[in-house]
């Protein structure tokens, strides 16, 4: 069990899309854990969406949260 983490574009490439951490209680803690596990993430821009909504401030995560790591969009 635990939250789901999805990664896309360059972030998917850096992380290999496999994540395993101890429990993280909010998105700030998640970012720290991610950047410790994947130091290259410190050098790329990405935003975080929780349950498909882009967040702009630290957000509490629960066991059912779906977190997505989104590099800058470049569709069209």
């Amino acid at each position, binding site marked *: 069990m635990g939250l789901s983490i999805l990664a*896309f*574009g360059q972030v998917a490439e850096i992380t290999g899309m496999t994540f395993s951490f101890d429990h993280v209680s909010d998105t700030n803690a998640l970012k720290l854990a991610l950047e410790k596990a994947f130091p290259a993430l410190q050098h790329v821009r990405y935003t975080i969406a929780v349950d*498909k909504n882009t967040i702009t401030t630290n957000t509490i995560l629960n066991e059912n949260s779906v977190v997505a790591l989104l590099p*800058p*969009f470049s*569709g069209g």
Partner: protein
Amino acid sequence: MHKPKDIFIEGAIPPAMIADSIAKHQTKTEIGAHSIFLGQVRKDVINEQQVAAIEYTTYKDMALEKMHEIREEIFGKYPLTCMHIYHSLGIVNAGEICLFVFTSSAHRKEAIEACEELVNRIKAELPVWGKEIFENETYQWKQNK
């Protein structure tokens, strides 16, 4: 929640699909103006390498929810008869069409403005990523201006 309409198609958007879409509107005789935007993959030259194709990926669940939200807002803002949006996923070669936005209304101003606003919002707000694949098989992540 009602499942949002899919906008993604695998590979390039064929010109014949655009013609079919136009032809289907001939029964809607309250329409006076159609505005169409097509995005085409450019063979840009970056560090002496030519772009051969773009490979598109998306976070589909989020993209379709966001597209649904944009669609509702644009329908609320402009008196449109129809709105159709298609975006490619996977490989689209240079010269092929990757985005098709189509708005229709009684008069031209509304169709044209709605189409332009849709294109701008799609590029800025949809979680879609393009990977520019060069002819020597290296690549880089596309950046929208």
